[in-house]
């Protein structure tokens, strides 16, 4: 066999591992969702159409669209002024505020949902508004979650906007308002559109927030899939709705890709400092903007902590203590502490699997070629499918013996589902780092007698260790907070922390609610700690390369 043929063979042998992993835990489940949705015995277009045409489905589609549009509009309306204050203007302490604004985005959805129900629930600080289980509550939570995306993307564009453009317009007789309308806004439009399309995608696939805050009153496609499975045991309808959701997400992805291409074309690569120092007159914009943002971000988190400490007779750590005691059999079969241990074990396995598979993929993608492009596309596919659909697919596929192995209710389906969800991000963290290594460094090692495996060990691995650590942190945090896929495959007697919180939130009684809030605080602290450690790793990676 020639050298080229041998190299190609070993490439495909290595590629077999990620392809087998994705095939078994993603592509096959996805295929069975399609089959379940379209076939019932034989090809059953009429049955599919009956689900699609039902008024329940129409309701869910309208609600999904409406919530996504409202969430996007709210995020843009608040995010654009914030981008101006936090990025275009220069003032002391803005870096701290910027990093605080980024916090909600890394919080698990269940935590955000718990925080808003703590704020808006009947005994919450804003309980008198009677917004619990309302559309307004969900939209506020979506904005809370996504405003940082708009701030970061638009802020970056605004900080690099050439100030002489506005000055040129002013010399042509435009007053400040017209400079803003005719120069600034058009120049920022690509960035705004790009951020908005990404936020739209996130809002349209939001699951935990809608499920917790909407209850049975507000139903989107995502929660309708869940309800069909869990309340009506109607897998057929769930599969049909999943196909609809996939089409929906594909459309949103296509829009956001188009918006990103436009932004990249306009951006043109020239980095320019368009910031200016804060002036007294800026306070008219800055104060109301920051106040609104501060209230939106701080109030829910404050309420969450406050209510996790509120007991029947004052304040105390009773709810935190209760996390270690056996709750009522009808509430949870295990202690919340045990659920937290389950979560940590599951997330550790998920992170390990995602990072080992991701590292293999990154190694295979380091050299660009047609086959590596194809592998890249397959590995990124889970990004384009909502976690709920992944979870449903695994439920449909792996709920029976496979190759003679009984997978029914196997606890390790949970880490596998979480690994599928985390894999694209792991790959996107590792591939740029691997591609940044000069290929001639590997050639140098080879001419010194290092076999391909030792080249990988002594060059790639040594230089990628920190990026790998960062990827492990990301994967661990994602798996720890994962809710959409987990809720379909987690066994009732082996809940993870997010599924336990969801269950506690749905039970009456101050003890259960209090425990839910305490558990949400614990989950938030765990996630934030992991993200902080990972981010420190990132700056060190930057210093190294």
């Amino acid at each position, binding site marked *: 066999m020639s050298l080229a043929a041998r190299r190609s063979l070993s490439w495909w042998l290595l590629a077999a591992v990620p392809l087998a992993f994705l095939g078994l835990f993603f592509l096959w489940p996805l295929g069975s969702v399609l089959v379940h949705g379209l076939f019932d015995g034989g090809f059953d277009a009429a049955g599919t159409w009956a689900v699609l045409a039902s008024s329940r489905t129409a309701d869910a589609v309208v609600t999904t669209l409406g919530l996504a549009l409202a969430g996007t509009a709210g995020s843009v309306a608040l995010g654009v002024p914030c981008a101006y204050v936090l990025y275009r203007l220069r003032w002391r302490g803005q870096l701290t505020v910027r990093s605080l604004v980024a916090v909600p985005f890394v919080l698990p959805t269940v935590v955000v949902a718990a925080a808003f129900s703590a704020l808006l629930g009947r005994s919450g600080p804003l309980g008198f508004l009677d917004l619990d289980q309302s559309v307004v509550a969900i939209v506020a939570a979506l904005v809370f979650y996504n405003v940082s995306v708009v701030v970061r993307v638009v802020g970056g564009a605004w900080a690099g906007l050439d100030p002489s453009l506005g000055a040129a317009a002013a010399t042509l007789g435009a007053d400040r308002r017209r400079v803003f309308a005719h120069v600034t806004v058009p120049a920022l439009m690509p960035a705004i559109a790009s951020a908005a399309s990404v936020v739209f995608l996130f809002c349209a696939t939001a699951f935990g927030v809608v499920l917790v805050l909407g209850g049975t009153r507000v139903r989107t496609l995502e929660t309708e899939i869940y309800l069909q499975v869990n309340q009506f045991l109607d897998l057929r309808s769930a599969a049909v709705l999943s196909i609809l959701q996939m089409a929906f997400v594909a459309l949103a992805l296509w829009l956001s890709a188009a918006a990103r291409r436009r932004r990249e074309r306009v951006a043109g690569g020239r980095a320019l400092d368009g910031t200016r120092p804060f002036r007294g007159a800026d306070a008219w914009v800055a104060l109301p903007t920051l106040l609104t943002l501060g209230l939106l971000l701080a109030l829910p988190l404050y309420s969450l902590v406050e209510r996790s400490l509120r007991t029947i007779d004052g304040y105390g750590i009773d709810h935190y203590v209760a996390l270690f005691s056996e709750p009522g059999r009808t509430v949870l079969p295990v202690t919340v502490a045990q659920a937290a241990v389950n979560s940590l074990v599951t997330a550790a396995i998920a992170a390990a699997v995602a990072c080992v598979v991701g590292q293999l993929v990154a190694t295979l993608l380091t050299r660009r070629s047609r086959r590596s492009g194809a592998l890249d596309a397959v590995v990124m596919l889970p990004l384009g499918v909502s976690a709920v659909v992944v979870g449903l697919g695994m439920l449909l596929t792996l709920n029976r013996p496979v190759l003679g192995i009984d997978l029914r209710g196997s606890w390790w389906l949970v880490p596998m589902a979480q690994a599928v969800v985390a894999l694209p991000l792991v790959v996107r963290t590792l591939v740029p780092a691997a591609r940044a290594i000069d290929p001639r460094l590997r050639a140098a090692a080879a*001419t*010194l007698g290092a076999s391909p495996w030792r080249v990988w060990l002594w060059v790639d691995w040594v230089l990628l260790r920190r990026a790998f650590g960062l990827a492990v942190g990301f994967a661990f945090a994602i798996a720890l907070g994962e809710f959409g896929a987990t809720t379909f495959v987690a066994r009732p007697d082996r809940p993870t922390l997010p599924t336990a919180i969801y269950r506690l939130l749905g039970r009456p009684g101050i003890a259960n609610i209090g425990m839910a809030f305490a558990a949400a605080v614990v989950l938030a602290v765990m996630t934030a700690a992991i993200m902080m450690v990972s981010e420190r790793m990132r700056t060190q990676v930057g210093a190294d390369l």
Partner: protein
Amino acid sequence: MSGLTVEDLRVEYPGTPPVLAVDGASLTVAPGETVALLGPSGCGKSSLLGAIVGIVEPAAGRVRWDGEDVTEVPVHRRGFGLVFQDGQLFPHRSVARNVAFGLEMAGVAREERRARVEELLEMVGLAGYGQRAVTALSGGQRQRVALARSLAPRPKLLALDEPLSSLDADLRARLAVEVRDILHAAGTAALVVTHDPAEAEAMASRVLRMSAGRIQ
């Protein structure tokens, strides 16, 4: 025939149409001899060097050592060293551990390794630099380390790809003579690629001229 024999080597890069970088090159290098391959940039001399060492796959032709065909032998088992234009030192390893890399790969024992590294650092004029980080070295020092690193595992042939072009003119003239002496002292067969005729004359006992993928 002892030493290196290259027969009618061709290197193609894929594309539409494919680029023919080396168009049937033949040459020999006797044991202990230093040969220079002189030509303008883009004439295919680096591709030819890469194909001889084994980091570039030839489309046709043969590479032999002492008459034995090594064309299909993978780089790491071919025993040919290569010095890159910009050194390509391992950034995460100290000077001594860079030089020791090839010895580690060959499974040389620790004591013997240390002695060999010291010997080589002495040879390239960097005695006592072993513990330094390679990122703290000047351009000339880096190339000396690269040379020492490539010579450490006693390669049958040392290929040098524009080893001095990243340095300033003054240093280049001095180092060219030094490299010649080092290669002579090591007794290694060497093939130097350069675009500078003076450098070629200074380093090599024989100069081959190359243009448009062919050796004249």
